[in-house]
């Protein structure tokens, strides 16, 4: 049975555990696409999750994360493209895939009239694990998620966070090689979140399984994931470790926070004007605070300007104006910044392409495809692609640029063109351009 061989391979791969070694990935998708009637939920996804890593899928609600997960489990059939999970095709062989992949669905539920243990026992039976073995396994996973003392109460008395933990236990009962968690930390209090993230880390470290988790909570993804994939409108617009992403998307991320003690004699807008006038400051935005004894600004340093010099200039300016500094700190490029920038850049690309298409004088109906065409002419590639109506709507709107703080004209600072690289020349035969009325 090829399945057994695949297990052996992945287990062997874990012990090697070198990230660069040719380990068979547990998840690999090629050009995976899911189209609903008028909506491309997942668009040409290429994804890889290797044994022993935590991969975070990051994206807004509706970006296609759950659809991707359902395709990986064989619960939804892809429109085109292919996926390999634990070495198998989930569309062809869903049972074998589901036997080896633990899945925690978004807003997981349990049979309220059964106890936690009974719920897990049902799962174990459905996985064909015999009774004695299942009971031992259940004791173990309940211990791992710290639910041992509530194991024999009905699950309708559980809190949301306990249900979530029970959901993780439920996914672990079958002893999976891969754990797929859809929004594992929503509706959990901060301490519970830390516990769950610790648990995931421990599971990966001690048992060598791989975790694919989706979330829209950036901080958590940042803290626990080895690699991150940024999802927007069905496409993976960035992928890699946090450092790699920061290099790709964060080179103009220098941002300072300046707090100044309020002074009745001075007008805050005058201070703002002076901050704005400092050389190297792209923009100073006043942050409104509840208490009035301190004024706070967020300062964006212009790309290319030396950030320490800007800090010095700010200090000098404050000293000259005899204002008292309350806070001066540099914000590291957070995943939030990276994420916002990545999404904005993807949109901007679309908008620019749309505009250039309009300049050439093409009919509006061709915008969707010609937008991508323009993107590719810059990248020197050509392909046929699918139109995404949502982004086409963005592109053809009266104001093509989203009103986000991050959408400035693209600088010529050798910014790597992430968006281009995802347009691969090969496309499925069915991926022709969609015409819009």
């Amino acid at each position, binding site marked *: 049975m090829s399945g057994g061989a695949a297990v052996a391979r992945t287990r062997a791969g874990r012990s090697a555990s070198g990230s660069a070694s040719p380990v068979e990935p547990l998840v690999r998708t090629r050009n995976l696409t899911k189209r609903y009637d008028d909506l491309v939920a997942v668009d040409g996804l290429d994804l890889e999750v290797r044994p022993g890593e935590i991969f975070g899928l990051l994206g807004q609600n509706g970006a296609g994360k759950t659809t991707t997960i359902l395709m990986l489990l064989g619960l939804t059939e892809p429109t085109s493209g292919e996926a390999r999970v634990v070495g198998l095709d989930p569309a062809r*062989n869903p049972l074998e895939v589901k036997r080896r992949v633990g899945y925690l669905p978004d807003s997981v539920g349990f049979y309220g009239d059964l106890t936690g243990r009974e719920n897990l026992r*049902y799962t174990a039976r459905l996985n064909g694990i015999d009774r004695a*073995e299942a009971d031992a396994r259940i004791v173990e996973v309940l211990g791992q998620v710290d639910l041992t003392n509530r194991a024999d109460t009905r699950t309708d008395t559980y809190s949301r966070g306990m249900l979530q933990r029970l959901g993780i236990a439920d996914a672990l009962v079958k002893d999976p090689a891969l754990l797929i968690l859809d929004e594992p930390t929503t509706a959990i209090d901060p301490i519970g979140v830390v516990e769950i993230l610790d648990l995931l880390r421990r599971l990966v470290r001690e048992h060598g399984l791989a975790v694919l988790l989706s979330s829209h909570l950036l901080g958590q993804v940042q803290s626990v994931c080895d690699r991150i994939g940024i999802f927007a409108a069905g496409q993976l617009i960035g992928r890699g470790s946090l450092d790699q992403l920061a290099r790709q998307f964060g080179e103009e991320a220098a941002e300072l926070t300046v707090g100044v003690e309020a002074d009745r004699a001075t007008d805050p807008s005058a201070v703002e004007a002076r901050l704005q006038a400092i050389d190297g400051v792209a923009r100073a935005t006043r942050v409104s605070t509840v208490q009035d004894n301190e004024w706070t600004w967020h300062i964006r340093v212009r790309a290319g300007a030396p950030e320490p010099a800007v800090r010095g200039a700010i200090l000098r300016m404050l000293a000259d104006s005899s204002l008292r500094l309350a806070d001066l700190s540099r914000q590291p490029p957070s995943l939030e910044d990276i994420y916002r920038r990545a999404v904005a850049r993807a949109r901007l690309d679309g908008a620019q392409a749309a505009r250039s298409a309009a300049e050439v004088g093409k009919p509006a109906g061709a915008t969707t495809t010609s937008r991508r065409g323009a993107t590719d002419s810059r990248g020197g590639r050509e392909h046929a692609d699918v139109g995404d109506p949502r982004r086409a709507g963005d592109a053809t709107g009266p104001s093509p640029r989203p009103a986000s703080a991050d959408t400035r004209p693209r600088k010529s600072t050798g910014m790597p063109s992430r968006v281009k690289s995802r347009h691969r020349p090969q496309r499925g035969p069915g991926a022709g351009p969609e015409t819009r009325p």
Partner: protein
Amino acid sequence: MSALDRLRRPVTDRLRRPAPARRGPAGPRAPGAGWSIVAAKELADDLLNARFYVLIAILGLVGAGTIYFSSDAIRSSASQASGTPSLFLLMFLLGQQNSPIPPFYSLIGFLLPLIGIAFGFDAINGERAQGTLPRLLSQPIHRDDVINGKVAAGLAVIATILVALTALVAGIGIIRLGITPSAEDVLRLISWLVVSIVYVAFWLSFATLCSVAFRRAASSVLVSIGLWLGVTLFAEFLVSAVASFVAPAGANASTEDLVANANWSQLLSQLSPSYLYQEATVVLFNPSIRTVGVILPSQAAQLQTGGVPSLLSIDQSMLLVWPQIVAIVALTVISFSAAYVLFLRQEVRA
């Protein structure tokens, strides 16, 4: 870690063992078929559920009430009844003239759809509402296992209760009235039970279909009950309206017109599962019924006077209602497979 490894080994071994392939590309499958695991769990649920006790209470009342009134009726008419075909079956068929409770067979015919609906209306959307459906479907079972298991469990519970109730009524009747059933009576009773179970399976699978189609349990109940009311209350009115339109039979209509009208009425009525079930029940319980079709007065007279007023044997009665039985089975299969296909095409996402 070491404990986990010890646990892991057998699981992996089991995974390596090639399971018997089932339906080719669908791949290997766990030895204990998924549907039976689902059915076992649903059975346990059903037996602990409040609706099981409500069902037992209602059916207990039905049994007690009908046996009380029908045995009275049989006693009072016992003098004339000597020589009637089967006194034993009369127990299920006869009600007292002005008793508040209709006879056993019609009460059961009335209740079976409701019971079927009660056990099926929230089969799938209940799982959806609880959020357990994605979790259930991400286990290594086929999707149809879920529906199969649920319908099988519901049917098993209903069938058990129905058989027990019928046996109870028969037993009490035997003791109270001192009638001993013939072998043929017992056979007729058993075949009626089988037909009833198929009939209940139709309602169960229709309710399951509704539970797949409608996200909310309330809509599902409403539609199921709507169909039930439609085929029991309004069908007669609709049928006669359509029949009079297609084959008008006025005040001075000819015999042909009247027969045509009656034939149309019957044809249309036979689209309704409850009508089919009624016909099958009456014929199975009453060996003296020789046809379910239209009888002209002349034919009736001939039947009564000419020849012997012979009774039908069980196989002849079965032959008479075979089309009805097949039709009920067909309706059951149709609604079941509709539920099945719809569920397979549905998105898992809550």
